[in-house]
């Protein structure tokens, strides 16, 4: 769709609301044409960052560059970005086709032309059959596709998605994230997707940017972030990790890299707190000396060869190569 992929870059972008700093001088260069996820807990500044990129929030300090030019003070529609809102923000009084054609109407494109263009967009999201309906008459997933079509009709260089899947039920969420990923590949434009769900970020993103307390904690490919978290926050937030304080400092280790053996053997001794059956795996929570909790993810068949119960003493084993030293 776009021959030239433009690179989006944040240069010490800051957002202040009075005395509170929502986004604190963050720097990041997004991969052009990639799928990036801004991941973090609520209030970490990820939404403010997205809204600043979109132009719905002013930048207190710093610049946002798209394809080398500063867009931080342009109005939203002049930036080459388009935003898909959390609740989709479809105009309830307009039909699906009119919703999609809205930006064309604002630019003065005549009715026939804009509806034709909207039709093409609706075809892209596989919704041509419903073009005369009102948003209220659509399911959540269909509304999302309309919102997607409405954002894409402006041919943006960057599509900004604000928690796009949070309003859907879990089953639909997984299906829609597959569709988002597919669409991004087809269009080849950058998607920047804000989420607080680590599974969503891991499933979708080429690049994960983990934010906490108004700063970027870690950025990298999904595998890098998951396999080598650099801070305790990232290790905990991305899930599947234990953060252990050992004599050499704090370390992260994946829960599936911890094995459970006989009491007396292994690296550390623990006391089983709870056992949770998760289908393919069984999650065993243990308490080691110093009141530290360590989870071990044991394959189901292995666990039931030698079942354990809360209260049992066990030895925890791991390969030291799997320990990652944490900076904070």
């Amino acid at each position, binding site marked *: 769709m776009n021959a030239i992929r433009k690179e989006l870059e944040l240069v010490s972008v800051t957002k202040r609301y009075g005395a509170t700093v929502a986004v604190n001088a963050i720097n990041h260069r997004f991969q052009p044409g990639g799928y990036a996820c801004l991941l973090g807990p609520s209030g970490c500044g990820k939404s403010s960052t997205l809204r600043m990129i979109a132009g719905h929030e002013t930048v207190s300090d710093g610049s946002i560059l798209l394809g080398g030019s500063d867009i931080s003070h342009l109005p939203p529609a002049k930036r080459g970005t388009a935003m898909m*809102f959390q609740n989709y923000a479809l105009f309830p009084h307009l039909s699906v086709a009119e919703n999609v054609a809205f930006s064309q109407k604002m630019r003065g494109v005549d009715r026939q032309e804009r509806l034709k263009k909207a039709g093409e967009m609706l075809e892209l999201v596989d919704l041509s059959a419903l073009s005369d309906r009102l948003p209220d008459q659509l399911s959540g997933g269909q509304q999302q596709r309309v919102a997607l079509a409405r954002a894409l009709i402006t041919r943006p260089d960057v599509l900004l998605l604000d928690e796009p899947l949070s309003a859907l039920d879990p089953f639909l969420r997984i299906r829609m994230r597959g569709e988002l990923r597919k669409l991004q590949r087809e269009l080849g434009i950058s998607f920047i997707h804000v989420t607080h769900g680590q599974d969503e970020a891991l499933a979708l993103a080429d690049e994960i940017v983990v934010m906490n307390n108004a700063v970027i904690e870690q950025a990298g490919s999904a595998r890098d972030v998951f396999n080598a978290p650099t801070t305790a926050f990232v290790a905990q937030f991305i899930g599947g990790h234990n953060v252990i304080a050992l004599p050499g400092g704090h370390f992260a280790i994946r829960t599936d890299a911890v094995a459970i053996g006989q009491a007396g053997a292994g690296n550390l001794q623990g006391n089983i707190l709870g056992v949770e059956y998760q289908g393919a795996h069984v999650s065993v929570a243990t308490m080691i000396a110093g009141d530290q909790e360590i989870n071990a993810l044991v394959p189901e068949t292995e666990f039931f060869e030698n079942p354990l119960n809360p209260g049992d003493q066990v030895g925890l084993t791991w390969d030291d190569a799997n320990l990652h030293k944490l900076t904070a």
Partner: protein
Amino acid sequence: MLKNNTFIGWLMALPIMAVLVFFLVLPIAMIVMVSFWKATEFSIIPAFDLGNYEFLFGSNVTYRVFFNTFKYAFLTWVFTLSIGFTVAYFLAFHVRSQTWQIVLFLLCTIPFWTSNIIRMISWIPFLGRNGIANSTLISWGVIDQPLDWLLFSDFAVILAFVHLYTLFMVVPIFNTMMRIDTSLIEAARDAGASGAQILWNVIIPLTKPGIMIGTIFVVTLVMGDFITVRFMSGSQSANVGRLISNDIALLAYPSAAATAVVLLLTVLLVIGVMLRFVDIRKEL
């Protein structure tokens, strides 16, 4: 079991039904009934007689007075709508903090702490021939002679109506506007809409139900009014309400009832037509 439930349902609806029948249906039925009675200078005779309606529809005065009533309703509607929409828009979209929204909104309601009549009459010393408005304009040198049309004129009537009823437009419009999701406005801006385009393509269409409810309030109030027209026009103009009140003063109840029935049907017709255009159910 089902029968029992139906019975309980009717029983629960009984109090409100009793109130409505007693205070709404019966009086209207009474008015309709009396409108067919015969009246002479000295007596009222129960009958089924179309004479009152014949007289009403045969008289030129009726048409002029109805036209006048519509004129007042229309002009008042135009002004209350433009002022009310502007005020509501300001409160809903420009005043950011909720505290200030409430403060300013309460400020709008302060005039309602006094009675309609007092608010109306207070215009008289202001607009009179030697009133504040005229003397101020003369002292500024804007005019040499006092303006006669300020008081006891259609201008004064419309002014009083607008003053009395603008709030009835502000409240429902403000209420509807507060329900507009701000992300819709952001989405419109994201799509490149200018301020005027957002107003025309997003805010006004979404405010229509509120506008319609305000319109119903204002139109019914103005069409049923008689005291404002009497005071502010100095008894020089008439509307249907005054026609009815004059008939009552002359004890011509059947004639008053017939006029009331026609007025009621006219108002219902106007509202019926308006409701065809806008669906207000979402607001209720």
